[in-house]
């Protein structure tokens, strides 16, 4: 039965049919599938499937990215309150838009995907100062700062990711906190993330999930080796 649920859920997500996806999950729970199974065997593998499909060149539009993220976040939120024990948090992320940038869509897609993957996300909102990104990351013990920028001048600007990098370097935090960037300018210039001295970039909101998880893992491995 679980296989049927997985297949029907993935199809509904790809069709951007949120109502149907939620109904599939609700029916599955009523028929005895546990909330833990829904999250770990349906939602998270569904996200992984989408990430892999995109990396293999499957063309997915922005609305599908958005709905994938929103459905995953909605289902996870509903299931979490039914869990027998709170799940282990995979990592912590601070996210916001670069100084001067007011575009929130990409950030919202990323947040939805991260939440579904049991990553604790702090959303600092829009037009965020570099100092705030770093201060909050330190205060919350985050492994990743995500800076979203939709415009060329906010992606490349001195007060955006470049300043976050400088602060991380000046405070000796580069092994503890990774800097990930995303947004249209990075898609149109895949080398731009290096110019702004980020550790990594993601081409779209759903793919950001894997990029951020890899960065979290890198920090954890470093912490493990160096105590």
């Amino acid at each position: 039965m679980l296989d049927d649920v997985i297949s029907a859920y993935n199809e509904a997500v790809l069709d951007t049919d949120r109502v149907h996806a939620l109904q599939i999950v609700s029916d599955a729970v009523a028929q005895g599938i546990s909330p833990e199974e829904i999250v770990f065997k349906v939602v998270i593998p569904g996200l992984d499937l989408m990430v892999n499909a995109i990396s293999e060149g499957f063309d997915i539009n922005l609305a599908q990215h958005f709905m994938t993220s929103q459905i995953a976040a909605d289902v996870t939120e509903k299931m979490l309150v039914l869990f027998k024990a709170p799940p282990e948090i995979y990592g912590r992320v601070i996210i916001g838009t670069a100084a001067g940038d007011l575009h929130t869509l990409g950030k919202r897609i990323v947040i939805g995907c991260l939440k579904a993957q049991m990553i604790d996300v702090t959303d600092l909102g829009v037009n965020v100062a570099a100092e705030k990104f770093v201060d909050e990351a330190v205060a919350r013990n985050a492994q990743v700062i995500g800076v979203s920028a939709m415009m060329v001048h906010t992606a490349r600007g001195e007060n955006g990711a470049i300043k976050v990098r400088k602060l991380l370097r000046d405070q000796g935090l580069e092994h503890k906190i990774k800097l990930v960037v995303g947004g249209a300018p990075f898609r149109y210039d895949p080398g731009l993330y290096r110019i702004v001295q980020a550790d990594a970039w993601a081409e779209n909101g759903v793919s950001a999930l894997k990029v951020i998880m890899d960065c979290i893992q890198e920090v954890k491995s470093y912490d493990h080796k160096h105590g």
Partner: protein
Amino acid sequence: MTTSMDRLAAAANGRIIDHIPIFCNLLDQGARELGMSIETYFSRGEYVAEAQLRMLKKFGHDNVWSLFYVGKEAELFGCKKILYADDGPPNVEDFIIQSYDDIEKLAVPDDIGSHPKFAETAKCLEILKREVGGKVPVCAYLTASMSLPALLMSMENWLELLMMGPVDSRDLLLQKCSDFFRKEIAAYRKAGADVLVYADPYGSTDIIPMKLFRELSLEWMKRDLEPGGLDGVVYYVGAARLNSVLEHVIREMGFQTYYPSPLEDIGESMRIINDRALCAGVINDIKLLDWTPDEVRAEVQRIVQCGLGGGNKFFFGTVVMPYGIPDENIKAMIDTAKEFGRSAHSGY
């Protein structure tokens, strides 16, 4: 002497007089040209017109713009707050639709031509028409009803309404945006704009599924453009890709000009259009910030030769043209498009 308008008319008929038309979106650069801040620059129609004329002379492309910044359309709807930057385009800071209830209250201006927030644009158009009218195409930028809500409520909230929100609210908003568009395009035509860029990123399957494109984008497109017709209108989907919907748009709408994404295969765009309309070969101009003039030259040559390989109903274009692009790269781009944009080089 051949004018830019002659070049455009020739290209529309599949001919090249001296070189293909070269359209360049030089907007924020005008502030640098006049040595003033971007906020001051966009405060007066005279400044924008003067800078457009100076840049035309300096770079030698084939168009001038009456566009200040995209958020101007939100200001016509009542947006009070624009966020200015030192080195990039102004942005809407105050979204006038904060809840679905605000859609009910949203008022479409009665007359855009006499609206105070249109006054500086009208002044700019008047100067441009006086100075280069009939010789150089004067461009205007108008956001399609399907994409305008993003300026009124944010991209995030528009996509949410589109995909998950109440259909009544969605349709009411589209209706008001379409009513606005009809008045806006009439105002621009009356003020003398020749090239009317119909900007519709939500008219691309990069943004929405094909089903929504057919059910909404195409239908609202028809309504937007029904009263005034398609004369001078360019179909433009921003940086989103166009090829997947191109055949539908040609058959259902029949625009005279298409402006694909820089990420699109221009050869494929030309093949789909197949001489039925004019098509732009568009450069990924973000890279002009870092490329050397030689790199710019190589890419422009590739685009122009590839485009002309599909016929002469072709022109060269740009997209965002970031503020910081060095003048030497703008010049290299335009000079190269002229050099290779001649019929003798079309056998690519």
